[in-house]
């Protein structure tokens, strides 16, 4: 057995990220690690790669117990990890990146660049990447960067290679190429732990599959013993109907908000158009980093636009700013609650009343009693726990922090509520409360837009789903008809056909 992790537990504050999880990996095995977002996969990977130290449990690598948890000793042990956000130094060359930390030295402590270049060429040949070792990382495509990471792991002669969602940002042909390399590595005796959300990929390439859910081990088995249905039910562990509130038909004659020709100045998205109706929850799906989040941010005026207009309440905004948006009833809850959602040094009341303070002031004096009443009302409505107006937000759990953010926006009585990753880092119980709350708001007439990486969540929550790929709206689905597969197909098609092929940016299927 190459790797044995036994009964690993890890807690962050009040969040139990891993409970009693075990994972075994044989030499020359591809081990698929699956689970929803927040299931604990990344935490487990980061323990294996030495970023986190487990609270309890033990890890044996090549039969020896691991006692030191830091990236350096994990690398020395022969464990390489490739994160979704690569750990390459963008301004340095391919060769410099591959040999960073182990540069061959010549005389006078001089870096032996010739040897680095020579060995890099050999490594790049092995992984089938035809680029010069002198190219800088920031001039490479995402797939090329990933291959450089793999070449680096190869050069370290790693016995265990960990990949965290390596295909998330790759087109299909690139993913195929990656898998060919992984199979070759397996044939050479390297073990691979692979995290992916794409079921078919895992079933295709993995020898053994482990499923995590809410930080706990659901099961481990040979890949041949799984099919997609069994994997999904293990990952989800519940029926969708029970988790997500029922949907109602939406009146679609007159849109609440209409967005036209939205093009970002940074190039994150181009020519996106959409309509949002009263009482509708519109989900925005796509692979991470394909413009979904940027779209919401630009709608709220956080990122500059090249072109585009928002029409709401008969008014047209062509240069949205947060202030203008709020006064028109458009609000946005960022995925980064700590940085962009909350004022951490403030207590719950101060956070809730911040955006509406102006309505209750006299000559800039704050009405303490009114403030407290509003906060109490909102806390009760959203069941923030603890239900105290003077609790410090920094000590609340992720779920309650998110509720405080929502409290604040709901106090402005918005007509459009936009949320990015509304349930990131939130436990299941609170997730369900938030789903119910969003549906209730929709039923009261609010238009809601949600960006989420969690496809199951989008499917369960949304009345309609807009799919984005490469910054373009490539398809819209009715919530009842959409499935993970149909969305993924739309994404893949959106990738392979070049943008100009889309005459109409939104096509209903």
């Amino acid at each position, binding site marked *: 057995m190459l790797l044995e992790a036994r009964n690993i537990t890890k807690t962050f504050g009040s969040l139990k990220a891993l409970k009693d999880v075990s994972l075994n990996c044989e030499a020359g095995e591809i081990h698929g690690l699956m689970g929803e977002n927040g299931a604990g996969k990344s935490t487990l990977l980061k323990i294996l790669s030495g970023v986190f130290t487990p609270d309890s449990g033990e890890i044996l690598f090549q039969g020896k117990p691991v006692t030191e948890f830091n990236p350096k000793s994990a690398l*020395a042990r022969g464990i390489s990890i490739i994160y979704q956000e690569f750990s390459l*130094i963008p301004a340095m060359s391919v060769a410099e990146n591959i040999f960073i930390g182990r540069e061959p030295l010549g005389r006078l402590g001089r870096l032996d660049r010739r040897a680095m270049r020579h060995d890099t060429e050999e490594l790049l040949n092995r992984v089938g990447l035809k680029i010069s070792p002198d190219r800088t990382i920031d001039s490479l495509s995402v797939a090329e960067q990933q291959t450089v990471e793999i070449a680096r792991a190869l050069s370290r002669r790693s016995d265990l290679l960990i990949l965290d969602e390596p295909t998330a940002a790759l087109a299909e042909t690139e993913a195929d190429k990656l898998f060919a390399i992984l199979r070759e590595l397996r044939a050479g005796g390297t073990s691979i732990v692979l995290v992916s959300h794409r079921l078919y990929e895992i079933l295709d390439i993995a020898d053994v599959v482990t499923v995590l859910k809410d930080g706990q081990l659901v099961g481990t088995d040979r890949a041949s013993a799984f099919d997609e249905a069994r994997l999904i039910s293990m990952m989800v562990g519940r029926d969708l109907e029970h988790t997500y509130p029922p949907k109602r038909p939406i009146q679609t004659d007159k849109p609440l908000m209409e967005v036209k020709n939205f093009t970002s*100045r940074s190039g994150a998205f181009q020519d996106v158009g959409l309509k949002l109706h009263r009482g509708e929850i519109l989900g925005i799906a796509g692979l991470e980093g394909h413009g979904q989040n940027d779209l919401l941010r630009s709608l709220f005026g956080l990122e500059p636009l090249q072109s585009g207009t928002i029409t709401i309440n008969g008014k047209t905004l062509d240069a949205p700013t947060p202030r203008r948006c709020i006064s028109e009833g458009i609000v946005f809850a960022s995925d980064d609650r700590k940085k962009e959602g909350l004022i951490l040094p403030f207590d719950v009341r101060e956070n809730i009343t911040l955006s509406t303070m102006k309505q209750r002031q006299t000559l800039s004096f704050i009405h303490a009693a009114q403030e407290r009443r509003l906060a109490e009302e909102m806390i009760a409505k959203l069941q923030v726990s603890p239900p105290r107006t003077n609790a410090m937000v920094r000590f609340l759990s992720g779920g309650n922090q998110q509720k405080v953010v929502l409290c604040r926006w709901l106090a402005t009585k918005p007509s459009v509520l936009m949320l990015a990753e509304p349930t990131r880092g939130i436990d299941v119980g609170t997730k369900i409360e938030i789903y119910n709350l969003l549906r209730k708001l929709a039923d009261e007439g609010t238009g809601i837009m949600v960006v989420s990486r969690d496809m199951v969540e989008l499917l369960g929550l949304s009345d309609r789903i807009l799919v984005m790929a490469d910054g373009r709206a490539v398809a819209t689905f009715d919530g009842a008809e959409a499935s993970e597969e149909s969305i993924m197909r739309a994404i893949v098609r959106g990738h392979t056909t070049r943008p100009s092929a889309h005459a109409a940016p939104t096509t209903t299927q």
Partner: protein
Amino acid sequence: MLASRIFNVYVLFFVISIVGYIMFPPFRTWGNATSLLSNSAPIIMVAVAQFFAMLVWGVDLSVGSIMNVVIVAASFLLDAPLEQMALGIVLCALLGALLGLINGVLIVALKLPDFVVTMATFIGFQGIALSIRPTPGGGVNPDFQMFMYSYTYGLPNSFWVLIPILLILAYVLRQTRFGHYMIAVGSHRESSQLLGLPVGRIRIGAYVMSGLCAAIAGIFLMGLIGTGSAEAAAPYQLNSIIATVIGGTSLYGGQGSVFGTLFGALILQVVLKMLTYANLLGSYILVFQGTMVVVVVGLVTLAQNRSLLRALLRPRING
């Protein structure tokens, strides 16, 4: 991208020199040009000191005070026969490195922001210098001062000393593992951590380099002024930052070069000289210097942030 920025520093130096040549007749003599160069050694070295701190995404607000401590120490150690003086120079350099080490250790071990620690040591080190020499005094071996003011092959001796020092520093930066890691840590601290680089030690090392270079700057300055004044280097603090930024060092770490910094310092020196030729009052020169910081930092930041620049230059369709 890096190459183009250094190129810009050279072009800027060239342009400013031409402007000076045309506008101010005193610039047109070889003697003036070389005297400018002979006075530039301290600012060049202190800019390089600042460069090492900024390379690892830090800043060293104490370089001026380190220079002052070294000047005060030099006023005791360098007032001696030649062999002892040579030992004194080594001790002064080590003293600077030690002060830099204090900065680095405080920043890394206590996890305090770079500017807070170096602001505190800026005050503290200055206090040390003043407590040893409340009023100017002491001196250096007259031969040393003579040497600093003399010329060989038409160029000041300080310049001939400076060039090999800069070449060694550039070698350390570009050709050794330590230099390589400073660039990596400066441009991507988090990745460097994940890659198992000794990030803390590299940052401390950068501050040691900074202290060492500031000490060398102090020794150069001592060679020019000849008396131990605990406040002699005060103007160098701000100027070191201006020169480094003009020289193309990124405010966000990881980018820049020793020779770019050299030219940044020379540009600053030429501009300041032009201002004195223009008969500006000292107080106006300060206003100008302050304005220059904002303009230069603004322009450099724009140039480094290409997408921002492109966005600003591109006409908006729906404005």
